[in-house]
């Protein structure tokens, strides 16, 4: 029953995407745009399938994925730890609040040239940018989620004999999970965008750099491949995130 409902909603959700693809196809078939500027989806996807066996392309995608993952993982670990500690200790909160207020609204992409100068052209500068951008939504969601945890949950655990620190890292952290995962999902989307951006701006490899190089050479078909790949990666990561969330949030009230 639930499988059938999922299937129906999957098909329903795919309809607008199919419609957009069909529109794209129609525009090309009716020659409304020159094929040199807007290649047909058939051409684009045929090329993508060919690229799926191409070692160089897979390596570039792997590099992007690696940066995205490492950056996102660091952002999650940092954001969740700082957020939880700030919720548990007034001292940490007092210490962190001004820094976060100042740094959160800074457009991190403006820091990227500095990251490149300091960390070089390789992975580190891209990862640093991903961390800088994905960190704050995760940190703020964790802090707010942890601060909003029902005190009676903590009291129940304290009365049972758990120490304050243990309560913080077991009860408060777990009770704040719905909020933390919401922040992490936003962080993941931002990480997808930012890693690509960073590679477009200054990089010698990765999907973003492929796109820039293709554009410079007027290879319009090749321009589409990195975009579609990062979109598919985003979809895949989101699906994986959903599976993980569902497992972690078992028992919690249904998320809207």
């Amino acid at each position, binding site marked *: 029953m639930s499988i059938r409902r999922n299937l129906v909603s999957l098909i329903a959700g795919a309809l607008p995407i199919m419609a957009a693809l069909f529109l794209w196809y129609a525009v090309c078939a009716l020659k409304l745009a020159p094929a040199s500027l807007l290649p047909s989806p058939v051409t684009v996807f045929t090329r993508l399938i060919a690229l799926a066996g191409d070692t160089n392309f897979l390596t570039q995608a792997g590099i992007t994925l690696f940066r995205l993952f490492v950056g996102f993982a660091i952002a999650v670990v940092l954001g969740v730890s700082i957020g939880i500690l700030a919720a548990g200790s007034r001292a940490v909160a007092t210490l962190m609040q001004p820094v976060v207020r100042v740094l959160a609204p800074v457009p991190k992409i403006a820091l990227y040239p500095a990251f490149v100068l300091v960390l070089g052209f390789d992975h580190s500068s891209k990862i640093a940018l991903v961390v800088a951008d994905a960190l704050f939504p995760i940190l703020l969601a964790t802090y707010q989620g942890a601060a909003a945890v*029902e005190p*009676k*949950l903590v*009291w129940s655990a304290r*009365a*049972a*004999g758990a120490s304050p620190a243990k309560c913080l890292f077991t009860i408060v952290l*777990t009770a704040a999970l719905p909020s933390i995962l919401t922040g992490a999902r936003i962080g993941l989307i931002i990480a997808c965008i930012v890693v690509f951006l960073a590679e477009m701006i200054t990089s010698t490899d990765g999907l973003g750099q492929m796109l820039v190089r293709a554009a410079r050479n007027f290879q319009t078909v090749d321009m589409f491949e990195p975009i579609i790949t990062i979109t598919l990666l985003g979809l895949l990561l989101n699906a994986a995130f959903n599976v993980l969330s569902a497992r972690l949030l078992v*028992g*919690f009230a249904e998320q809207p």
Partner: protein
Amino acid sequence: MNGGTVLPLVGRPDRIQRVATNLIEIAAVSKVYDTSQRGRHVALSEISFDVAEGQFVSILGPSGCGKSTLLYIVGGFVDATSGSVRVSGAPVTGPGPDRGPVFQEFALFPWKTVLGNVMYGPLQQGLSRTQAATRARELLGLVHLTKYESFYPKELSGGMKQRVALARTLAYQPKILLMDEPFGALDALTRKHLQNELLEIWERDRKTVMFVTHSVEEAVFLSDRIFVMTNSPGRIRKVFDVALPRPRVRAELLVDRRYQEMVVAIEKLMDEQEPELS
């Protein structure tokens, strides 16, 4: 019959004698909340009373008179502004497994199953997982929830949740139960069932219980002693000793003149002081 002396069971605060086996000693406890918008609010003013080991005491009073606050102070969850609370002779400085709370809102861990919730306390006490599971299953049997051990709290009714909460607290064997309107959110029938179950459980090991409630009948049915509080600032207004025989059976009590008279007397007292909500 002789309507003038219907209160043979009533004591006065000044006549309460200190017994050697007092488990909880509350001495001149005051609580002032500093609120940014409304300034200082005196929630409790100079509350003093003792609870003997094995006694079941209830606290009655209008909404906002500080019943929960008092219970939280005894639990060590909230600090008193002045005064002291001693449990087994030692001053209360924080929560401890000798005092087990049961809240109106259940406060179960939503990510743990029924069994996981009840195992939590024993695990904190250092029992192994198998020992903790055995202990938890015993208690789930006691509250008639054996079949539901693998359910999550959100899959239970209110009455079942409160049974789990009670089992979770009993599982770490606190000396004292601190119950804050535990049955307040339940329908009348479930409430009566749980009152009976609570009394049955209490009859087994006679834990010391501090029980906050809005229901006069509930207080008289369950308690050895009832403290009636006044509103802002919260004070003890009157103490009633309930000398009804135990074990108590509801059907017998309902026709017992002493029960009826006590309920009426307390209701009257509480009617006199409608909460002034200004």
